[in-house]
């Protein structure tokens, strides 16, 4: 007859402590290296949303009601609705970012990449896009229309409050 020797839990020895310390420091070092790499690769913050800033579109009288004028440099369309209100629509499709052209004949913005279609107010007429074209704020000062391309406004659909009047 022999008894199984009981296994006593051993108090952590100095070697265990040093081993854990080593592992802990190793993990810390790895995290630090990773943080440096991530910080190095992270996109620079400055200039990101700043864009071209304020674009002077022109005097109010230049834009006839129910018209669409492209501003390729500012990447937007200045729309004057039939009731005389102004909307600055971003030309970037809200689906995957292609630039939408203006089709004067059919009065729509048809995306050439995945066939999303938007109306004059930027509302979605045909999917796959799920939300209306983004807006830029329109300011009318002394009869001059200005568009602030540094502030992109995302929206689900068109609402009358988005229109700027004289």
């Amino acid at each position, binding site marked *: 007859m022999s008894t199984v020797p009981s296994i006593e839990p051993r108090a952590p020895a100095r070697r265990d402590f040093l081993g854990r310390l080593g592992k802990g420091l190793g993990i810390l070092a790895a995290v630090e290296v990773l943080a440096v790499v991530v910080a190095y*690769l*992270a*996109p*620079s913050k400055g200039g*990101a*949303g700043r864009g071209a800033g304020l674009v002077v579109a022109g005097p109010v009288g230049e834009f006839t009601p129910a018209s669409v004028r492209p501003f*390729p*440099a500012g*990447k937007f369309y200045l729309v004057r609705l039939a009731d005389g209100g102004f909307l600055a629509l971003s*030309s970037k499709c809200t*689906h*995957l*970012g*292609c*630039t*939408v*052209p203006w089709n004067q004949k059919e009065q729509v913005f*048809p*995306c*050439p*990449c*995945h*066939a999303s*279609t938007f109306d004059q107010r930027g509302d979605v*007429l*045909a*999917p*796959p896009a*799920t939300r209306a074209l983004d807006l830029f704020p329109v300011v009318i000062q002394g009869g001059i229309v200005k568009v602030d391309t540094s502030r992109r406004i995302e929206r689900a659909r068109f609402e009358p409050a988005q229109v700027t009047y004289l």
Partner: protein
Amino acid sequence: MPAAALPLQRTFGLGGAAAVLFLVLAVTGALLLVTYEPSPERAFVRNAHHWAANGLVLVTILHLLRVFYRGGHLPPRKGNWFVGVALLLLVVACAFTGYLLPWDQLAYWAVTISTGMLEYVPVVGATMLRAVRGGPDIGPATLARFFVLHVAILPIALLLLLAFHFWLVRKVGGVILPADVGDPAAPRGPLVLTSPDLTQREGAAAMVVFAAVMLLAAVWNAPLLAQANPGMSPNPAKAPWYFMGVQELLVHLHPAFGAVAVPLLALGLLVALPAIGGGERPSGRWFGSPRGARLALAAAALAAVVTVAAVVANEPLRRARPWFPGLTPAVREGIIPLAVAVILVAVVAWASRRRGGTRIEVVQAAFTFVAASFVVLTVVGVFFRGQGMALVMP
């Protein structure tokens, strides 16, 4: 090595062809690195790089299908199937990062669309998009990122994994052979010397592949459109052919499904194939058996009919008023079509089972249905989409 492993129809030399194309890409890529400035005199090397890259994507896909339809994804070759799927992803990543480098209209917009898909990843999408582009839009930071991935990180990863892939093939005793090639005394049939019997054949096949690339490069110039113009998308703006299936899906489905859910499900299916198809020893014959071949063919034919019908039917539907205005787009253009697709796959599996298919053959038919649908979508996207992505005759 077994003489039975030698005939061309055993593998069609697709793995070897992929390896040759990789070498051509490494050499032409190194040459291009020395002169990364577009000029007409250097067009031949660029053409060779372009055609070899397209060939590599095509051959890798064909190789995957060949391995699958001979049961090479099942144990004991299961581990190597996963390595192969990883290699496919690396090949596509290499092709995709290389796509931006010409910095023409095609490059700019194809990469705008493809990276834009990241935005629909839940929670971390916007961060991932900025990280990949190095900013809100495609710009110099994107070019720098794609350049280092394309010329250093991805090729090194590809080379290491390729070596592992070859080693695993060697370790398992070479390509899969039908059970009836041998007899109890010599289970793998008569043996021959690897050199010269195999090496000469591989050498000849390599020369054929190389000659094909050189011929293509001499006859057809790689496309180079006008310089990238962020203000104007070409009409239609099409992705490279191997992404056109996904682009076609994006026309029909809610972006979160077309861009994220469906591609992830497809990748999950590829990875899951060894697990769901298992339980039996693969026969090593094409499609498992003549019945397996019939079932796969029927599934492919059904997929072609269903997919074409769905694409054509959706063309007027998606421009019409939504049928159930109460449903959100994610349900109407995401969950419902996906559920219908899953039910169709289940029906194919059930019908194959009813016709006496073994487990391997049932999974094979279901996979064939999915793969054939994707091929049809790719063909529609490449040949039947014109201005404004409208359906047109080629």
